[in-house]
């Protein structure tokens, strides 16, 4: 077993270390605290750090396997020695941080397999084939991949298997929650299993083979969160684009831009209110004329269009930010139209303009450089991570995954949560009244995510961020805004029957494959919960929704981190 040290840290037994070194080579096993510190850094999307950013729980060791067989051997070694583990791909926002001090962090950096199969419009990738690599290779064939909000440095395999998988181009690239094809998986017991067409050694093109589907069973909606073994290879969908080859990137750091290809337009539509925007959205989607639709909060557009925070602050104060970045212009769509021919482009462009104007909207005048910046962001998601530039601290909200009927209500709920504290003098960073990022998914439903940005160095601001976060859930319980997108860990259980016993079912899956809970996480489902607790938790919603309880919890999270 392991010896206990201070600060919830355990030390690896000599026997376990020796076995890991035999499996991987000594160079790829470390329990050096300095080398492990990067795996215990509690910051990034969705995190609320405490005074310093180190987590209270550190891994017992970090290992770097290179093959699926090595991963399986590491998992079996964990089992032999009573240790837990958590897989880690790119580790953005400490999503790969372990959640128990007896856990080995399996850093999958050396597993970067990437193979494009252009005829099948797909790729086969390992956990460390990052989106920027996948996109670069896919573009050589006139294809692209879905890039989630974490930006180009994220792992598409991780987003497809383990964490939501949503990003701004969902209108034409779907979302990685839907983009996984065949898969290879190391179970929490250390077995290597392939699914879909790969199970029959027939390639990676199909997610499910004969019999019941298993993709959803393994990843569920939110994703496995590292709580159900290690995914080591998947097939993933690629999508055709109207330009083959490298991006024509121009401009200078930090404002890299891309030249719009032929038959491509970037428009920014402004609507008089959210009712008009909703009505226009149904028409835009019905006619299938937009390649990408994105509603960024105005201040986030400002972050994209300015090279520094200093410029953003100055231009906010002197009122020189362009129209889309002005706070009163929240009812808006940035629209990308990417066509294959002049005729197609003319039809799309005219139709979009007609719909927007018919619903009382108009188009903001953008400078060419602004258009190219926004296009660059659409093509690569390069600037989405700028949500962390302002203060270095953000978390997010419940997320809405439902019909566009909910658009005005989602914005209203966003304002209810943020407007007071994001106004000048409030406890959060100043910003838009709501900070919903909204986009359509495959022309059908809406993703909405209210971003909360706080000063990570101020306990009061962290507490306000935490209050806004958990306040979203309380508000959702009281007056639902469609389906909740971001139900994580224990929040699912408290939400209860409204989501159809989903956590209870996920728990059965978890327990079946991982009865000892070796694959440990707080972002999947609480394992082995007694039925009585399962029943009681939803009944506690009124308690958790109580303003005094919410404030007490927020204060605690602001102090100790989350």
């Amino acid at each position: 077993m392991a010896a206990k040290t201070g600060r919830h840290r355990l030390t690896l037994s000599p026997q376990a270390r020796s076995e890991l070194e035999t499996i991987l080579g000594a160079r790829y096993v470390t329990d050096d605290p300095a080398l492990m510190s990067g795996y215990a850094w509690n910051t990034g999307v969705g995190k609320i750090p405490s005074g310093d950013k180190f987590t209270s729980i550190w891994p017992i060791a970090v290992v770097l396997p290179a093959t699926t067989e090595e991963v399986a051997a590491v998992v079996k070694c964990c089992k032999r020695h009573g240790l837990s583990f958590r897989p880690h791909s790119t580790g953005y926002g400490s999503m790969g941080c372990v959640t128990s001090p007896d856990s080995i962090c399996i850093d999958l950096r050396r597993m970067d397999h990437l193979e494009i199969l252009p005829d099948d419009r797909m790729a086969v990738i390992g956990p460390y084939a990052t989106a920027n690599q996948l996109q670069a290779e896919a573009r050589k064939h006139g294809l692209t991949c879905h890039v989630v909000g974490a930006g180009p440095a994220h792992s598409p395999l991780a987003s497809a298997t383990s964490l939501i998988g949503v990003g701004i181009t969902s209108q034409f690239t779907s979302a990685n929650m839907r983009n996984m094809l065949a898969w290879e998986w190391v179970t929490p017991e250390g077995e290597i299993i392939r699914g879909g067409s790969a199970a029959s050694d027939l390639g990676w093109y199909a997610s499910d083979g004969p019999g019941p589907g298993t993709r959803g069973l393994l990843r569920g909606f939110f994703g496995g969160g590292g709580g159900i073994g290690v995914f080591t290879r998947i097939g993933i969908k690629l999508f055709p684009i109207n330009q083959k080859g490298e991006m024509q990137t121009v401009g200078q750091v930090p404002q890299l831009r891309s030249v719009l290809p032929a038959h491509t337009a970037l428009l920014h539509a402004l609507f008089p209110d959210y009712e008009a925007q909703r009505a226009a959205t149904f028409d835009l989607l019905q006619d299938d004329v937009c390649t990408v639709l994105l509603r960024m909060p105005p201040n986030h557009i400002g972050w994209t269009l300015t090279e520094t925070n200093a410029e953003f602050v100055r231009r906010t104060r002197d009122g020189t930010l362009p129209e889309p970045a002005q706070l009163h212009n929240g009812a808006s769509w940035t629209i990308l139209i990417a066509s294959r021919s002049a005729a197609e482009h003319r039809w799309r462009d005219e139709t979009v303009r007609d719909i927007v104007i018919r619903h009382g909207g108009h188009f903001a005048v953008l400078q060419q450089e602004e258009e190219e910046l926004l296009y660059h962001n659409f093509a690569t998601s390069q600037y989405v991570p700028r949500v962390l530039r302002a203060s270095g601290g953000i978390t997010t909200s419940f997320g809405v995954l439902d019909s566009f009927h909910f658009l005005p209500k989602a914005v209203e709920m966003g304002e209810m949560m943020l407007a007071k504290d994001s106004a000048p003098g409030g406890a959060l960073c100043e910003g838009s009244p709501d900070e919903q990022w909204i986009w359509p998914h495959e022309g059908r439903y809406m993703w909405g995510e209210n971003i909360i940005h706080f000063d990570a160095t101020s306990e009061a601001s962290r507490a306000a961020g935490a209050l806004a976060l958990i306040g979203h859930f309380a508000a959702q319980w009281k007056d639902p805004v469609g389906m909740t997108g971001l139900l994580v860990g224990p929040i699912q259980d408290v939400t209860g029957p409204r989501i159809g016993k989903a956590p209870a079912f996920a728990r059965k899956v978890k327990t079946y494959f991982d009865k000892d809970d070796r694959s440990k996480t707080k972002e999947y489902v609480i394992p082995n919960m007694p039925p009585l607790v399962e029943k009681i938790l939803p009944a506690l919603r009124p308690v958790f929704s109580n303003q005094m309880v919410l404030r007490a919890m927020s204060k605690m999270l602001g102090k100790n981190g989350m």
Partner: protein
Amino acid sequence: MNDASLPGERLASMDRCTRCSQCKFVPVPKSKAHMSACPSMDFVEFHAGSASGQLIMASGIAHGEFGYTPSMLETVSACTMCGACDTACKVNFAEIVEPLDGLYALRARMVADGQSPKRHREVMDKIAAFGNSQGLPRSDRANWASGLAFLPRADILVHVGSVLSYDTGKHDSLQAIVRTLQQAGLSLAYLGQDEGSCGMLAWDLGYHKQAKALAETFIRQVRQAGARTVVTFSSSAISVYRSIYPRMGIDLSGIRFLHFTEFLLALTAKGLVSLTPSGQYAGGTVAFHDTCKLGRLTEPYQEADRSVTKEMGGIFASRSPQALHFSRNGIYDAPRALLKHMGIEVEELERSREFSYCCGAQGGVKETLPAAAKMAARNRLAELQETESEILVSACGNCAHHLGKHVRAPATVIDLIDILAPNLAPCSSRETGVTATEGAC
């Protein structure tokens, strides 16, 4: 190292790292094979090898989470201080993290805490004893200039640098170029055996006091020589002159620093020297390796209030955004223009200009962790395979030497001075109507 041993602003910047991993990648990679921005990460592989990992380690030490460990010191030693992380990070994070300044601070604190790796200390001992990191005798430093005559005082001081001074294979080219300048009527001074280390390596290793002492010595020598212009053949030197000396608070007034590529280009434009089409290479294509020191790290440092202030409830805004480094103003165009003058087309590598990948020769890695330096060189040379060129040109003697050591036939690495030397010729003032003094100054 305790909390107080890192300036509060710098520690705060380190603590703002979001571990997004963008410091590991060039911002817009063109292929999977060449997407990495970080030779150190490629070698170490654990997150600690990246800029983010190093900042987190520095933060951990400062916050008392752990103490220095041998693995940490080895990991830090793998970093070439090439600054590619800084460029990549700033695409999204602009003023809030500034990784390169964090890396400078980390190494300085390691020295202050007596934790500088043994091999770094050995390098510093050689610099102190011999004026170069290789431990070669001062008496050989000026061998390249045998037969050339320099003035004790002149408007222009030639600086050669430690690598080229001792690289006997480059002495003919150096001689030829300097002789041409003299034939063009330029009066040149040279410090000879008194030329020492420029201080760049000392700075990179975290020995900032020693680097400052070296800088002060050099500037005193420049003033004693009466020089108003320093022309250097060293990319490390031009980098330290423009981006590091100003940080040290040294009085540089009245002295202009030029890299030899800028100087020759200016002389060519003014008609003092001419470049003829290269017999061997004209009409051909070469790939060009942007040295990190000559490129992104030569961006001039501006004296300014470099702190951030909290605005709008917690938005960190630079007090001097105009002084932020974005790798924009390095020397990228002059070497390319010289090649063009000689009829040579330049084919860009996938990672070029401010996104160039370090070859491993800098930051003390070559001297102290040869395996890491070799891997970086091999990674860089692999990029040549994506081009039509078999020739990689560098305007840095250090890079050319290091890459040349690891290149495999049929590819070759050529130092720009070896292409320039046979094709550079003086123009007489009767032809141009420009005097040497007018032309040079």
